[in-house]
């Protein structure tokens, strides 16, 4: 049964004569039956089906009789006109809903690229030139002028070109690839350089919608164009743009298909045993200042196993280059971008962990596992809220004896006022942060050295507590011991976050 109703008839004729294709006619009539769009794009199949099946009772018999009658001269002319209409490129969708979607295109989309991916679910995404919005409005306004009482012009109900495209293509592509729907994204993009100028009038009429861009990219982004079209009054629109739109001479050009798998998240805890390894690559002015980094050492084998293009590494806090991370290690999580492989068994994950650990003696990884995106927030919790434990090797200017440092063991919950340390002030805001040192313990070494253990609130700058940072951290160890003190070595003993869940060896 045809989804078009009797009341749609006048608008259908107008749309066809303006230069719309059959599927765009359906869209402007707010037809939301997906199956209607999946028929081949010929006008007679989509719009004139009614003489095939039983027609609705409201149809006057005379009309039916006319359609069923043999081809008259009038009908022959109409048939020729129809054929002409069908070969034209649609003035609204520029061919996207005509020859550019269907089983042949689905096949093109499913190229070798897509076949090399493992995936469970697929999503089709479409990028259309911004001019389409302008043309859509032009036809819409024209319809409204022609038949003011038609409900087709309520813009909210109109089916978007993108939607119709997906209704037609998604199923076909999925069938071709053999998947079902979601984690894997196939992106199809169309461009239409011929009518880039279609949008230009909007720049002068709605200049506040368009931001100047620094790159060579077009100022006429889809979002900006849509915003401008919403603002502009119909009358003003008609002054600047033809309605109905001018007949295009060619269709849109399909660009290369992009295939993208949704990110996979891998988490774990890392130890750092080296005092000359930064957490992230240290590069200044294009020159690498220090060899390798924690994230690169961990990422290399992981990227390889998941066949991923890139990654984003984050962790629950960070340590300096010259600080070791001991104990259970620091929680981290990596977002793997566009992985060609998304599932690894427990055994395979264990194997991957082994590979990382064997690759370098500078780091060690444990509890390696796949987690969800939501789990990332658990890790960031630790950065602000949880406690950390450290051991520092302290040097004192004045000679000390065992008894001189025992009082430190009794200090509990010492609140510090720490101004942003000078060593990070170039990239952090100037502020005073209150941080608590919950407890400390000391181990005497010699007259100028001792080990200091500390359990502190997250975000406490240990080095500045020890040397005072020009007196900008108060109180500090120099004040407590009444001598200049400095920190020679620092180790992180524990990061007290109970995530990710531990995986028994």
């Amino acid at each position, binding site marked *: 049964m045809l989804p078009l109703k009797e009341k749609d008839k006048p608008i259908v004729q107008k749309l066809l004569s303006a230069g719309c294709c059959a599927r765009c006619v359906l869209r402007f009539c707010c037809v939301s039956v997906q199956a209607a769009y999946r028929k081949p794009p010929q006008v007679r199949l989509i719009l004139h089906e009614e003489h095939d099946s039983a027609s609705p009772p409201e149809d006057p018999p005379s009309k039916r009789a006319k359609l069923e009658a043999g081809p008259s001269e009038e009908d022959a002319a109409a048939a020729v006109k129809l054929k002409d209409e069908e070969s034209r490129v649609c003035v609204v969708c520029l061919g996207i809903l005509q020859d550019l979607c269907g089983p042949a295109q689905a096949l093109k989309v499913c190229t070798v690229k897509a076949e090399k991916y493992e995936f469970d679910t697929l999503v089709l995404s479409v990028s259309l030139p911004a001019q389409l919005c302008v043309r859509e409005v032009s036809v819409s306004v024209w319809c409204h002028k022609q038949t003011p009482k038609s409900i087709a012009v309520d813009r909210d109900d109109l089916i978007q070109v993108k939607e119709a495209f997906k209704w037609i293509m998604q199923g076909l592509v999925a069938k071709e690839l053999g998947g079902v729907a979601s984690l894997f994204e196939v992106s199809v993009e169309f461009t239409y350089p011929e009518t880039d100028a279609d949008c230009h009038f909007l720049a002068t009429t709605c200049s506040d919608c368009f931001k100047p861009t620094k790159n060579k990219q077009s100022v006429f982004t889809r979002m900006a164009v849509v915003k401008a079209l919403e603002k502009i009054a119909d009358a003003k629109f008609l002054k600047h743009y033809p309605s109905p739109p001018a007949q295009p001479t060619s269709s849109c050009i399909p660009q290369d298909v992009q295939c993208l798998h949704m990110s996979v998240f891998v988490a774990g805890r890392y130890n750092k045993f080296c005092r000359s390894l930064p957490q992230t690559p240290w590069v200044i002015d294009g020159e690498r200042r220090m060899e390798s980094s924690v994230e690169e050492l961990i990422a290399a084998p992981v990227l390889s196993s998941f066949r991923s293009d890139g990654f984003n590494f984050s962790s629950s806090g960070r340590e300096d280059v010259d600080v070791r991370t001991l104990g259970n290690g620091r929680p981290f999580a990596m977002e793997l971008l566009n992985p060609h492989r998304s599932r690894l068994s427990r055994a395979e994950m264990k194997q991957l962990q082994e590979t990382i650990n064997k690759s370098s003696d500078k780091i060690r990884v444990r509890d390696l596992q796949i987690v969800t995106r939501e789990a990332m927030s658990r890790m960031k919790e630790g950065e602000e809220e949880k406690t950390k434990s450290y*051991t520092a*090797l302290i*040097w004192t*200017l004045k000679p000390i004896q065992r008894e001189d440092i025992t009082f430190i063991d009794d200090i509990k919950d010492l609140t510090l006022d720490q*101004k942003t340390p*000078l*060593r*990070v*002030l*170039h*990239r*952090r*805001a*100037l502020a005073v942060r209150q941080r608590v040192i919950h407890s400390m313990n000391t181990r005497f*070494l*010699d007259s*100028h*050295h001792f*080990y200091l253990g500390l359990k502190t609130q997250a975000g406490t700058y240990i080095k500045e507590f020890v*040397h*005072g*940072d*020009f*007196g900008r951290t108060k109180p500090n160890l120099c004040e407590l011991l009444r001598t*200049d003190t*400095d920190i*020679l*070595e620092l*180790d992180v003993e524990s990061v007290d976050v109970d995530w990710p869940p531990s995986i028994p060896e």
Partner: protein
Amino acid sequence: MDCVEQKDTEANAPSVVDRYYTRWYRADLKGKTCEDHCILQHSNRICVITLAHTHPILQDGRIIKSINYQISNGCSRLNNKVSGKSKRGGQFLTDFAPLCRITCTDETEYTIYSCIRGRLLEVNENILETPNLLLEKPSTEGYIAVILPKFEESKSITENLLSREEFESIVAKRTVDQSQPT
């Protein structure tokens, strides 16, 4: 932990300043003999302005009477406020912008200058409460101000400054000149 080097004497231990800062100098500020300043430049380009050990304030057992950050009717360095990562709002200083005026009990007065171009981040308020810090620890707790040079200028600001060796030789020359019979 791994092996610890025994550092016997105080002199052997490199301080925080030695480890992370480069010492630059400006001598005889505004033509006034021996009013030398020492600029501590961190590897991240932030500079700390301090008195050089040769500055008159630190000589002859002087005692500080007052330190004033109000350098003119309309401007007090204490009103300096910076916000955000880019330190917006900080007073922009040129080489000879005054930071503060220090008066000693023997009625001598000295002006301390910025020495470099950049944005003022903070002045040391601890020395207002405890002026002795300036006398006892001029290179650390007794610092005067912290300045952030413009990123583009972070290397060029040292062009007008003396390196440690250059400064030491100027100081050495002074002693020689002083001992010359007139």
